[in-house]
């Protein structure tokens, strides 16, 4: 995965309809929301996420079998013995495991993104507003951080990190993954927010606030922050997509979410070697689940970015 993604300017296949310049901000925002919901790709994305949300909330109450209970019939093929998507090598129902597995990723990915965007925005605001030595030093550290692919730093951090059970109601291994991925998102979010703050800080309203004698804290939170919410919202949705990507990959690599939590990446890690023996369903169905969720989030993020930039 590449961080460079964020630097590619979004150019729609056809020039989108330009928004007529309106003096009323609210009208423009309603227009943006309308445009967002008008797009078929955003609707498809939301429908897919909706399905996974139902699976996550319903959990074991709506799954056909217990995701953790072996059936005794190990490795039954799809549609045999009442298992629509088959069973894994321990005889557990694949469909149930995928449905319940949605819960984990839908909790972990947004939390990691919230963490990364919160810390990143804070750093970005400080760097962009104060500039100077703080900006130079932090900027260098961020550059050094971004030298490494996210999966690789995640691998290093998770293999050394202890299990933190500090998030109530979340498994310790999941909690650790959330914190590590969230912290690793901080540098890239900080860079994006810093750039947005830099282009705002020269505006007249910031100068006016300074002349009024407002404190730095006031100007950052009350004057600049409301004007950089668009890039922060876009960054948040993009980060959710990357968080799903990162959490699934790290679990697949064996350092992320651990048993007994049913997790899509972990399911593939445990079963992909058996593909060679013809047991494809335990790998393919969780892979389709990951693919559908990642693509759904990206469809929404892309559309949101297009609408916000109008």
């Amino acid at each position, binding site marked *: *995965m590449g961080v460079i993604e964020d630097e590619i300017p979004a150019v729609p296949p056809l020039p989108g309809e330009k928004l007529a310049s309106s003096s009323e901000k609210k009208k423009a925002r309603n227009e943006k929301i309308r445009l967002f919901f008008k797009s078929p790709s955003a609707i498809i994305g939301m429908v897919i996420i909706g399905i996974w949300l139902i699976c996550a909330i319903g959990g074991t109450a709506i799954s056909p079998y217990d995701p953790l209970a072996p059936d005794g019939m190990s490795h039954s093929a799809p549609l045999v013995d009442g298992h629509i998507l088959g069973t894994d090598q321990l005889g557990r129902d694949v469909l149930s495991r995928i449905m319940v597995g949605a819960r984990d990723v839908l909790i972990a990915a947004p939390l990691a993104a919230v963490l990364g965007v919160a810390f990143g925005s804070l750093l970005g605001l400080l760097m962009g507003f104060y500039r100077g030595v703080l900006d130079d030093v932090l900027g260098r550290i961020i550059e050094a*951080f971004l030298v490494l692919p996210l999966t690789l730093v995640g691998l290093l951090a998770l293999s050394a990190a202890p299990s933190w059970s500090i998030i109530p109601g979340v498994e310790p291994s999941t909690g650790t993954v959330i914190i590590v991925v969230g912290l690793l998102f901080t540098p890239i979010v900080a860079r994006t927010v810093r750039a947005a703050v830099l282009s705002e800080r020269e505006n007249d309203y910031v100068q006016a606030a300074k002349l009024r004698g407002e404190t730095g804290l006031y100007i950052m939170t009350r004057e600049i922050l409301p004007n950089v919410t668009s890039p922060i919202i876009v960054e948040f949705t993009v980060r959710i997509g990357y968080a799903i990507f990162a959490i*699934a990959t790290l679990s*697949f*690599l064996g350092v992320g979410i651990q048993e007994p939590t049913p997790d899509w990446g972990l399911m*593939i890690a445990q079963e*992909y070697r058996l593909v060679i023996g013809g047991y494809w369903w335990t790998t393919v169905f969780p892979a389709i689940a990951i693919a559908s969720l*990642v693509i759904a989030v990206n469809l929404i993020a892309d559309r949101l970015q297009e609408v916000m930039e109008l």
Partner: protein
Amino acid sequence: MLVFLIRRIALAIVTLLLLTIIVFALSNVLPGDVGRQILGPFAPQESVDELNKRLGTDQPLYKQYIEQMKRYAQGDLGESYKTRESVTHVIGTTFLNSAKLAFLALIFTVPLAILAGVWAALKRGSLFDRVMVTVSLAGSSLPEFVTASFLLVVFAVQLAWFPTLASTNDPSGPIDQLWRLALPVFALVIVYFGYIARMARAGVITAMEADYTRTAFMKGLPRGVVIRRHVLRNALLPTISVVATQTGYLFGGLLAVELIFNYNGLGRELVRAAVSKDLPVLSAGVLLIGVVYMIATLLGDILISILNPRVRLGDQ
């Protein structure tokens, strides 16, 4: 040019230093007893202490860091906690295998992606453009291991066109080896095609709308000449830096792809090291990949500065 080069290299050295600190800090998040971890919970305390003393892990962290840097500077990367093998040896052999895979992936991805991106931009709004944008977006947003496992199931198992294992251990001929690498290379091409193609497309679209392009058309130059001499020369500069950064990130994608196809490269070795908490191997490997990224981006920047005088003369 020389000033630009010196400044750029000095910056790279600062980044490298910071990177070593970051990697050292991350691998020491756990204030664990290294000797105890290696010898297990039942070893007598004396042998744990002795091992810690031998490894230097009884020292305060900043001293450990300085010692480690001294050893790294002499080319000594330490020894594996698990196998006692020299890290230099483990990393060296597997890195060459990974480099082979990465090189193959790049020589397919880069020309293909640039061609597709430029073509899509010139035919903006056409069916090809829409398909290219969608496919590249999907390809680069999926995790590498998802793409690789789809390929494994479809092409290696169901259709049985390619071998399921990519390991280079068997003494087969070069053609056979290439055949074994086909699927892992294909997986990497799918993932990295998208970034480069979309950058090339965006670059060409921006250049096509620029004033200098309009001027060139108004002068009456033929379309082919305008595109070759005016559009592509400007449009592909940003693509060079994307290719450079993606070369570095390619090694991150190798982790999952090498694991799926059981290829004996650096990625698989680092995953093994991470799962067994073999931190000397893991941190040296992570640093090495960081260095590859920095060299790739450095070469990219130099190439851009040669092609574009505005960059090397710009901020002086």
